């Protein structure tokens, strides 16, 4: 580390510089690293693998749905969508942005050398890997067929698939999520550089801080719930068993106490990414910084009081349903605030259409649609007609794939130069963004219609009149699949052949753009002293009434 180049070196100088990637070599230097940036890369590789496994499952069962009678045996189909849901949620989307981009960026953004607990950070990756292996083991041994929701008593008593291995896999992955969240919380509280006040934090940090709170407060409940389920399955007696007076609905309460907030784990970090991107490519500070930051916290808190909206028609009490419905509309307000503020940020900006910005457009559009259809589900009357149908499948893919995955891929493009020191090929990237956007809508928009027509989810076979829309959807899925493969290829390509990126290729603001790309192991030679607001793109000129 003796050869650290001056921070503000020219791009040319920084080419041969020692950075976190080339400071040490060999697999040991990766597997035993405590550098948050290297751990982020480890995570990036693992979750990408899981994404492709999950995506492959989706492709397979979309093929099955081309024919009304189905093509595979029902057992196969059920195992496919269960594995798809479990892998995509717990092993891809929950860790996606937090464990990769945020892991990489939060210490840099707050001006620290590392997260508060670097070894815990590494531990969380190992735990993740163990969980993923357990789940993959379950999938390979014959699969799990409970859906990602593991509802009792089917999962505890009736299913004869590998529920235990999968449940333990998810249980394990939960701890990795908890540790990530814990690390972020402590880092944001205790590791900020001098001058980095709360009101100067990048919004990406705010949203990941809020995510951390959800991870810490929610995930343990999932852990204990799955454990209770596992005991019940092992001992053949337990507390959810209706045969001895247990109530299966209690399982759902406990499950959704985590899993509803978890859907915000799966969107808040994405919202943070979009705030950064929109501001950077509008070259303008974020409109209503305080409101955007505050709405993240509001979402985090309110997310814990709406879980019952998944149970409106399960036999949950009518009065409780009323309360949960009302609260669900409250949690939609902070999301709305964000959408409006992103739009307002563009007003009088200086907008350029680089690839990340295209993804941000995609996010705003698709998240809005996904979020608004969430309102159909939160309204008691329409939920009765849509629960358990493809309407819900469409809703959550719009927010999760159209929202979070878009944000993730967009953020990956945005910070790729910072992480690797290379630029991606812009033309290809724009092309891929377009393909993904089109493929996505073709896949999932027909599902809204299917859902209201009544096609139930988790069906391997369906009445023939639904075929046309299903074929459309499957066609879209293959386009979408291709769309995801393109970035994969050019990202790998760019590692070797990409144009070298300077310190700040987009002329963005934020501490991460003041250090070389890729950064050195300790990020900063000397702890930076922050004297500016976030998004300081110029003098404040105008205050709207």
């Amino acid at each position: 580390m003796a050869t650290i180049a001056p921070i503000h070196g020219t791009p040319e100088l920084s080419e041969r510089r020692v950075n976190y990637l080339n400071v040490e070599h060999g697999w040991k230097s990766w597997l035993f690293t405590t550098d948050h940036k290297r751990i982020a890369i480890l995570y990036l590789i693992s979750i990408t693998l899981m994404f492709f496994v999950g995506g492959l499952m989706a492709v397979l069962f979309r093929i099955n749905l081309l024919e009304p009678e189905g093509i595979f045996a029902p057992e196969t189909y059920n195992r496919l969508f269960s594995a798809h849901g479990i892998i995509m949620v717990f092993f891809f989307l929950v860790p996606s942005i937090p464990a990769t981009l945020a892991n990489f960026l939060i210490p840099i953004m707050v001006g620290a050398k590392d997260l508060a607990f670097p070894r815990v950070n590494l531990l969380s990756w190992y735990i993740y890997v163990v969980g993923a292996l357990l789940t993959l083991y379950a999938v390979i041994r014959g699969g799990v067929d409970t859906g990602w929701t593991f509802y009792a008593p089917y999962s505890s008593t009736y299913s004869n698939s590998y529920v235990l291995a999968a449940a333990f896999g998810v249980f394990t992955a939960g701890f990795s999520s908890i540790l990530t969240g814990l690390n972020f919380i402590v880092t944001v509280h205790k590791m900020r550089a001098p001058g980095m006040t709360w009101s100067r934090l990048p919004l990406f940090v705010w949203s990941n801080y809020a995510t951390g709170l959800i991870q810490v407060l929610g995930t343990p409940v999932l852990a204990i719930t799955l454990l209770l389920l596992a005991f019940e399955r092992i001992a053949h007696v337990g507390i959810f068993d209706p045969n001895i007076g247990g109530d299966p609905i209690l399982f759902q309460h406990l499950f959704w106490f985590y899993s509803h907030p978890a859907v915000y784990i799966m969107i808040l970090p994405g919202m943070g990414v979009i705030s950064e991107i929109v501001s950077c490519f509008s070259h303008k500070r974020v409109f209503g910084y305080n409101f955007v930051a505050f709405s993240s916290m509001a979402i985090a808190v309110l997310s814990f009081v709406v879980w019952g909206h998944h149970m409106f028609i399960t036999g949950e009490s009518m009065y409780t349903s009323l309360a949960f419905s009302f609260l669900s509309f409250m949690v939609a307000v902070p999301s709305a605030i964000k959408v409006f503020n992103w739009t307002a940020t563009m007003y009088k900006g200086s907008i350029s259409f680089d690839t990340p910005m295209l993804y941000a457009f995609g996010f705003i559009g698709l998240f809005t649609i996904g979020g608004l259809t969430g309102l159909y589900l939160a309204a008691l009357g329409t939920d009765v007609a849509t629960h358990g149908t493809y309407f819900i499948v469409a809703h959550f893919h719009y927010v999760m794939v159209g929202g979070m995955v878009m944000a993730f891929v967009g953020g990956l493009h945005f910070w790729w130069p910072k992480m690797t020191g290379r630029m991606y090929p812009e033309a290809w990237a724009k092309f891929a963004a377009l393909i993904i956007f089109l493929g996505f809508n073709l896949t999932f928009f027909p599902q809204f219609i299917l859902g209201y027509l009544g096609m139930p989810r988790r069906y391997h076979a369906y009445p023939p009149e639904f075929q046309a829309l299903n074929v459309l959807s499957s066609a879209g899925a293959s386009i979408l699949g291709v769309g995801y493969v393109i970035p994969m290829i050019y990202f790998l390509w760019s590692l070797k052949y990409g144009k070298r990126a300077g310190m700040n290729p987009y002329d963005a603001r934020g501490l991460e753009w003041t250090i070389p790309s890729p950064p050195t192991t300790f990020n900063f030679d000397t702890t930076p002293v922050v004297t500016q607001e976030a998004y300081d793109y110029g003098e404040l000129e105008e205050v709207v009434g």
Partner: protein
Amino acid sequence: MSAHEVAIPKVKTLVLVWAALICFTALTTWVASFEFGEWNIVIALLIAVTKASLVVWIFMGVRHVTTLTRLFVVAGLVWLFIMILLTASDYKTRNWTYQAQPWANNPAHGLSR
């Protein structure tokens, strides 16, 4: 709380707290042998909360920590409370729809049969 200005508790304080905790244990056991109906559980929980507070406040040193840490301590409990409260609200009100009216549901006098 930072490392250089640690507040070192007095042995006397610690032992006193210990004695109080033991007394409360005896108390809660003793009270439980009376029949107060639903109040039994209320009393038992009140005593448990008192005991827990003593441990948190003195043994775990929360009286010396920053407001931030205190906020975190409270947050855990508030979230637990949310979970229990909203779940219980479901179970408590489930039969209201089909029952006459829960608040009018006095012990049945003179069943008409």
